[in-house]
């Protein structure tokens, strides 16, 4: 599974599910979705990574970009469900605290 992501809005909350692999090859595919979420100034974004199997530094950068940009326009971001290799990478980069994992 290359990458597989889905956005679903429910009231103030945008749920973004990212599954498969998020890396230098696939992260660019998320860019326009991130752009839209930021433009629409969504108040709450919940990123569900329970289906994410692998991430690399480019994938982390994409999530950080999402996090920073949503917050810059007054929104909140919560990242949930990371496991296995992605969780190990977040811990190594000390992002588990920021992402509230």
């Amino acid at each position, binding site marked *: 599974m290359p990458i597989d992501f889905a956005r679903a809005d429910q009231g103030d909350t945008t749920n973004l599910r990212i599954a498969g692999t998020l890396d230098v*090859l696939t992260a660019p595919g998320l860019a326009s979705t991130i752009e839209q979420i930021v433009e629409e100034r969504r108040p709450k974004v919940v990123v569900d990574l329970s289906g994410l199997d*692998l991430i690399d530094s480019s994938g*982390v*950068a994409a999530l950080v*970009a999402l996090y920073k940009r949503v917050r810059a326009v007054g929104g909140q971001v919560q990242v949930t469900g990371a496991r296995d290799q992605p969780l*190990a990478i977040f811990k190594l980069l000390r*992002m588990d605290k920021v992402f509230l994992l």
Partner: protein
Amino acid sequence: MDPRTIRMTAPCSLRHRALAVRLVAEACRLVRGERSGDDLAAGYDVRDPFDVAVVSAFAEIYNNVALHACAGLVDPQIELAIAATPDGITVEMTDPGRRFDPESVRSPDLDALPEGGMGLHIARAMLDVVDYEPGPPNLWRLSKRRVAAVDPPVVATRTA
């Protein structure tokens, strides 16, 4: 030349990355002593912490070599030499690309939530050895021992 060494030569591009990453991942299974070759169709296991570390680190170094070192070259090729023993794994990767000085790359300021510059940091944190010899060809030597030394370091204590 050790006859147990696994060698690969392949085009150096992101498109060909999986060839190298899969080979390294499969070599990790040999390190763990798992019978290899019998799970082609099944979910690919990068759960074991050893494999997670080696595969994550190698992928970062490969990305950098393909994107930074070999960018613009015509038909660049990388060469891999993998030694997988019960003690651990060593991967040597040579590329024909631009040389650079890894010492010039600082550790990222993680508190600032960086959006880049994390690749080398990940590799170094995940492995026991991340060495670089500028070329051409440039040589990366990546290595991880299977069992971390359990002896605590000897600390000289002095009474003040």
